[in-house]
């Protein structure tokens, strides 16, 4: 029987979080989950602040015991202040 060391387990737990984020109830494919040393970093853009909170809650639940850091941006819904000329 193979006995996983902690780092291996962490890798699979991170993979499971990625799968949960992509699954039916969440469907956030635009969030990246990376292992950075002993912590996990979440990056990407989400449509609303409530979805960012939801993703953070899931990450902390799935990765309990690991340090979760997040730099998730809420998409800007402002009209543009410039255009591009395509000559």
């Amino acid at each position, binding site marked *: 029987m193979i006995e996983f060391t902690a780092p291996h387990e962490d890798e699979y737990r991170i993979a499971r979080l990625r799968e949960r984020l992509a699954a039916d109830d969440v469907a956030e494919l635009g969030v990246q989950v990376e292992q950075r040393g002993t912590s996990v970093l979440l990056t990407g853009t989400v*449509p609303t602040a409530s979805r960012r909170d939801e993703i953070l809650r899931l990450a902390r639940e799935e990765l309990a015991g690991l340090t979760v850091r997040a730099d998730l941006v809420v998409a800007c819904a402002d009209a543009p202040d410039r255009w591009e000329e*395509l000559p």
Partner: protein
Amino acid sequence: MTRPPTTPDTPGRPLTTTPDGAGPAHDPAPGPDPTSETARSDGHGTVVRVAAVGDIHLGPDCAGVLRPAFAGLPDRADLLLLAGDLTRHGTVEEARVVAEEVADAGVPVVAVLGNHDYHSGEEAAVTQVLTDAGITVLEGDAVVLPVAGHKVGVAGVKGFCGGFVGRSAGEFGEPEMKAFVRTTRLSAERLALALGDLSAAGCAVRIALTHFAPVPDTLAGEPLEIHPFLGSYLLAEAIDGAGADLAVHGHAHLGTEHGMTAGGVRVRNVAQPVIGRAFALYRLPVAGDGTASVPEAVRTAAPAHAPGGELISGAVRRS
């Protein structure tokens, strides 16, 4: 069949005036809003103003988020393109949110669906909700819109994946693999036919609208390993083969905005996380006003079309 755009345009309306002829004076801010200027008045000719965004991933929790920005569109743009992934899970409930967001856009809205919009298997119902709201949803077909007396054509497919030249999947081996690549190939073929229809219709400007990417240029920032899941060179081959003035796509949230096909067609990734705004704005010169993007022989041979926006070949190619 003929369907009206969200707001009927008047053929011959010069782009130098807003629909009410009032110009940019609506803006209460000091000085004119630069994006409210409706056309170049510097002697370079008419332009068509294209607003575009993809990957807005709306759901009931996002209702109203984009509406204020969309409400200002008539002063800034002649049409709005939606490059797929309009919903989060592809449900009818979410599609209704999309319909509400663009309800006051005041310009013709043309969309393709994205992979998220297919997730619940309700893509037909999603399309119906959007269509009922006045949005032209393209999948292997094209629409011709009148802008300032010119025909502006948009050909659209969702597209699919497979990868890019030298690093792409082939239609070989297991049935599953062949079906995967065939899906992309057939989608690209439908796009080429729809673009061809726009040329035949005498469009002065032709735009290819997809969800998946036609080139890897606009994927820069995405992990290389997932490029084959983000688009296919078959779409670019179709665009170059049939000809277009602009190709617009979404899907790649980590990508970049600018790219170009091998044949020299500009590609823009308008995924909302990429453009960082409610929509991006592009201004294309209209062929015949200094820049010829459609051969004259094709234009003059084209049949006349109703001014309200005409859908081409939809029923035939949807199956």
